């Protein structure tokens, strides 16, 4: 059974800034002493919570699905949720 864990932890992210492709592209991040390499980003979309603009990045390392949130006001990354294993 797939477990979706709501996390909302601040995380360290290695990202790349690319012209013409949005603000940044997250490449890898660490959470609970483990490094996750983002192999494929599925979709990126902005959301607004009040005046603060966030960008949501959804992607996978091949086994795990994660949803990252980039706070454009504080320039901080959050791991919003993580789903372990393939959906079943």
């Amino acid at each position, binding site marked *: 059974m797939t477990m979706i864990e709501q996390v909302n932890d601040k995380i360290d992210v290695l990202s790349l800034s690319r012209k013409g492709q949005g603000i940044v592209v997250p490449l890898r991040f660490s959470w609970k002493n483990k490094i996750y390499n983002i192999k494929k980003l599925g*979709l990126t*979309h902005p959301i607004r919570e*009040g*005046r603060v603009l966030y960008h949501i990045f*959804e992607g*996978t390392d091949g086994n795990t*699905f994660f949803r990252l949130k980039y706070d454009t006001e504080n320039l901080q990354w959050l791991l919003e949720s993580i*789903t372990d294993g393939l959906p*079943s």
Partner: protein
Amino acid sequence: MGYLAKLDEVNQEEPQMMHIDLNSAFATIEQQANPLLRGRAVGVCSYTTPGGIILAASYEAKALGIKTGTPNWLARELCPDIFLMMPDPDKYFYVNSRLYRLLYSYTSDLVPLSIDEFVIDFSTSRKVRYKSLKSIAIEIKRRIHYEIGDWIRVNIGIGSNRFLAKTAASLHKPNGLDVISSRNLTQVYSTLKLTDLCGINHRFEARLNVNGIYTPVDFLNATEEKLHKKVFKSIEGYRWYQRLRGYEVDCIEYGRKSFGNDFAIYKATSDKQELSQLMMKLSEKTGRRLRKNGYFARGAHLWLLYDDHSYWHKSKKTRQVLYSTNDIYLAMQQIFNQQPEFRAVSKLGVSVYGLESTTPEQLEIFDTVATKQRRVSNAIDNVNDRYGEFTIVPAIMMQMEDKIIKRVPFGASKDLANIYKQYQNEYQ
């Protein structure tokens, strides 16, 4: 005899109308976001509990008989491995707005019909002078793949009116591209059932059947007089006569007449306090949209669905204009108290109608309570815009922040213009 024009012939003009339909929209967008879900049965549902229902099923789930409206418990029986998830409206609105921007690059004669459907009229577009509409459709599909998402697939239909374009878009799902012209119209109709035609449900089908019309070809061959005087007994018969032949009768844009929100209660309740809280929250959501779009309202409408599936509703015209959340809530509570019998409610909805633009505003020499309340409402809206929805709420709504979650409206496209504007601003 003709009524407005004699149009016995099928429209011979080259088709210029394109209908674009995002396949299994919510489920496809979720599969786009999460590559691990691709190729798997996915259901986006109202609630993930067994009592919830499927709002959108992926094609893999549809192949197993799971469709919109299937209860979750049945979906699990049909496919134990189905991945059920709650909707994420922001994501769907974003993909819709991206699609809008992409299509807008072809022509401004573009109408979003809903969160997953667009219709484009190319009759005045310069693009079709140099390319066929079919090659433009292929280009649109390719651009969607590269610019929006590699899993996003659309059906495209081309026809001489909106109806034929939509019919063409439904012929081969998913990822279809079909043209209905005067050359293949009868042949296409011969492959369809009456209920395959957009606008013909089982009730209309029965009405057609009792008049000797059993197939779309029979429908096409029916005389204008028969449709007008015998079958539909209204102008609708004349419209169908033209619609089936490829003449445009559906390009009427209806203005907004009301704003409303509804909520299905997980466990039916007759608790007046709980129902009042829900009415207040629905009034706040309705009021926010009313004010954001620059309207007052002159009427309130409340409807209740009881747990025995019976229904009660009442409208009330108001002497004072409705503007603040409190005005709306008060009107709703007054209607609520007029119920003949208080029973357990499983679903309720509020709406306001009789809309009047707030501009130009009739200024008053002296401040009245109403003008002060209006300013307070605008100030509260500004705070909530700045710091997030429900930052300031009426006291009655405390402790219930997450009770009414954001939903995607089916069909309604009138709020989409605001969403396009918002996303445009995000990227400027």
